[in-house]
């Protein structure tokens, strides 16, 4: 885990969440730029996951089996949540599609925080 990258992911994700909920409040469907914002967050998460995976294999981070499993679980969920949210939001081209992206972008920071907690023990 790299703290600066985690912080960027958390702040970026929350910013996209606020943006998405504003769109919902204005009764607008997800805009193209909202999807771009979400993609940027997904990329930050993917880089973090990539680095964490390399370091985990190198022996850093959690050492006990159940903590490694827990970390990998959070890692995969954080990786898959943004694309899953995007696919579902496409199916709901209304204000609720925007709210769905907002909900996903609120959950991603929680997953990043949990990854940091499990990593540090």
């Amino acid at each position, binding site marked *: 885990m790299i703290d600066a990258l985690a912080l960027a992911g958390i702040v970026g994700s929350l910013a996209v969440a606020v943006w998405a909920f504003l769109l919902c409040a204005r009764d607008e469907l997800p805009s193209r730029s909202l999807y771009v914002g979400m993609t940027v967050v997904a990329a930050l998460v993917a880089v973090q996951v990539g680095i964490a995976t390399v370091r985990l294999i190198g022996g850093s981070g959690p050492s006990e089996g*159940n903590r490694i499993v827990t970390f990998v*679980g959070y890692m995969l*969920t954080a990786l898959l949540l943004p694309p899953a949210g995007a696919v*579902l939001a496409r199916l*709901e081209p*209304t204000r*609720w599609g925007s709210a769905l992206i907002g*909900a996903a972008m609120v*959950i991603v920071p929680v997953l990043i925080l949990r990854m940091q907690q499990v990593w540090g023990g």
Partner: protein
Amino acid sequence: MDSRRPTNKGPGLILLCVYGLFALAAGARASVQIATKFSEAPLAYLLSALAAVVYLVATVGMARSTTTSRRVAVASCSFELAGVLIVGTASLIDKDAFPDATVWSTYGVGYGFVPLVLPILGLLWLRFSRPTAKSAEVA
């Protein structure tokens, strides 16, 4: 003309996604706990596993959005509400019975009280939505 939304559309889609995520979270947590340290707190871990199954059933019930599946979802949400209230209260009164946390301990405090709010939102949404119309009725 029924102006209510189908259960699996609009805000319901978000609700069932969060339900799905909780099924995953509770299920994964219970699996790890049961596989690695079952004897430490068998009651807590079995309750986590049960909660996961009920979340999953509620998710599928809402996603299918038929008359029957909605009834199943109502039953699951009611069960969850009862579970979080009973286990939440029990975990406060008798801490020794729950040496390790479940999703429902202290009304779901470990999950930001979402386990307490979720079944209430679920039941409200099921009340104010309708089954998805069959294609014949739409045409």
